[in-house]
């Protein structure tokens, strides 16, 4: 594993993925590697506004000649993300990464993984899918969003799933594309049909993660959830991001997470 560093990077590409979401690829001459599920703390804009960095999951890492490209996918929501959106290629950025623990990508020989993403929860899940595809490990990929326009990067997701014969399941709350309803319901239907998974790996909004944790408990499915608590530092020193575990401990999700085994979390996560 590569040590975390505070990298000064430059924007290589900034493209829109949807009316509200966009991709930022930054380039660094430094060696860099990350595990899907790890994240970066990004200084969004010069000066003091916003004051704190924002956490973004790493969506991919690629070598490009002398430099390493690191990909992020961001939804424009507030101060930080709107600053990022306005960056042009060449703009400088500080990025502390890789942080956190990441998903468990190994599976017992031949066993299948279920990768589940909701909305802007896609980046770590897509990163995991592409890593698994490259390794020839089987998985199904479940992508959910409120509406068709918010299903991001579907072609890349399809290619990753296809690489090892996995299914790409799309679901939208409004039924405008793929199956209608929540993506966790789509997963439940597969389980009902008898499909078996070694483990589910998921990232998305809290209600989705809760639904998945419930499903996992009911069906005795192992599940790893990537949580997004508000973060102050991303490195375990502010204690602003703690998550309650089943044993009552409050642990910093930036350090012990952001990925947690669903069964380790306090009961309210699967209540």
């Amino acid at each position: 594993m590569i040590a975390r560093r505070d990298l000064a990077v430059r924007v290589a590409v900034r493209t829109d993925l949807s009316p509200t979401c966009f991709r930022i690829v930054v380039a660094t001459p430094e060696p860099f590697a990350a595990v899907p599920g790890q994240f970066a703390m990004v200084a969004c804009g010069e000066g003091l506004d916003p004051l704190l960095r924002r956490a973004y999951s790493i969506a991919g890492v690629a070598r490009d000649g002398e430099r390493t490209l690191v990909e992020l996918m961001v939804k424009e929501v507030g101060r930080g993300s709107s600053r990022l959106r306005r960056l042009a290629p060449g703009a400088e950025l500080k990025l502390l990464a890789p942080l956190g623990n990441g998903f468990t990508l190994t599976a017992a020989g031949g066993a299948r993984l279920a990768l589940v993403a909701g909305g802007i929860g896609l980046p770590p899940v897509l990163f995991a899918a592409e890593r698994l595809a490259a390794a020839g490990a089987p998985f199904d990929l479940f992508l959910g969003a409120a509406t068709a326009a918010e299903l991001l990067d579907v072609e890349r997701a399809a290619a990753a799933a296809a690489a090892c014969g996995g299914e790409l399941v799309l679901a939208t709350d409004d039924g405008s594309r793929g199956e209608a309803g929540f993506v966790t319901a789509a997963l439940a239907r597969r389980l009902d049909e008898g499909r078996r998974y070694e483990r589910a790996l998921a990232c998305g909004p809290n209600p989705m993660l809760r639904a998945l944790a419930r499903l996992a408990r009911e069906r005795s499915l192992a599940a790893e959830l990537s949580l997004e608590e508000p973060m102050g530092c991303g490195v375990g020193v502010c204690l602003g991001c703690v998550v309650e575990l089943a044993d009552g401990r409050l642990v910093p999700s930036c350090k012990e997470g952001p990925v947690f085994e669903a069964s380790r979390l306090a009961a309210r996560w699967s209540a």
Partner: protein
Amino acid sequence: MSVRLETAVGALRLANPVMAASGTFGYGLDLADLCPPERLGAVVSKGLSPRPRPGNPMPRIVETAAGMINAIGLQNIGVEAFCREALPELRSRAAVVAVNVFGAALEEYLEVIARCEREDGIAAYELNVSCPNVSAGGIEFGHDPALLEALTARCRAATRRPLWVKLSPNAPDLVATARAAVAGGADALTLVNTVRALAIDAAARRPVLANGIGGLSGPAIKPIALRMVWEVHRALPEVPLVGIGGVETGRDAAEFLLAGASAVQVGTAIFREPAAPLRIIAELECFCAAHGVADVRELIGGLQWR
């Protein structure tokens, strides 16, 4: 031009005037890869209580304009775990360590100090009498001069190590509080802790933080902290001060020194940039070199009032 960065807080000599503040640098080792504790003037531990504390429910932090509000609720691993898990490596790195002490009652402060007295490698105690987060907690000590003097005197009697008292900017009378701590035997005063503040989620019609009120830190409070350091320095010019509140740059550090601080602490800036204290040391050195300051101590209290 070579610049002497050594300073001293009372009898305690420091290689440079920049410390990491309590609650923003973990137990001194969490960021050692990015900001080695031994390169700082000192590191102040997260506030330690006799036993581990779980802290407040979430959310605990919220960003504000050039600041943040926290209501962590003094979550900490307890003094025992600190002494066993962090202190040995801090010692072997020869880091200068100040222990930030917190108690829900006078006896708890004494308990923490008593446990630490059994250990080498602790350079000073910093009494947190000002945390605004725990209603049953330290806040009363810091707001009532008589109580504060008594607390300080009891802690004073429990150790021969340097004793710092960290003042609250919310105290009704800052200078009276400062005098009380000195009367109780404090060797130095750290100021300031966070400013009581409120953030509201207008859509939810609720405070953003689960605790409601929290403590404001960061650049937003720097002008208030500087004013308080100067006020206390003017009232008690002989008392060593440690300045804190929104220090982001070497120039900020110089400003606190000029206002009367012998050293500064860096808090929120570490969240923005884990190596901020190292950058600040370098910038302070540059500032001194550029302004003909051969010894950083020349700055201390050097503000010329108009």
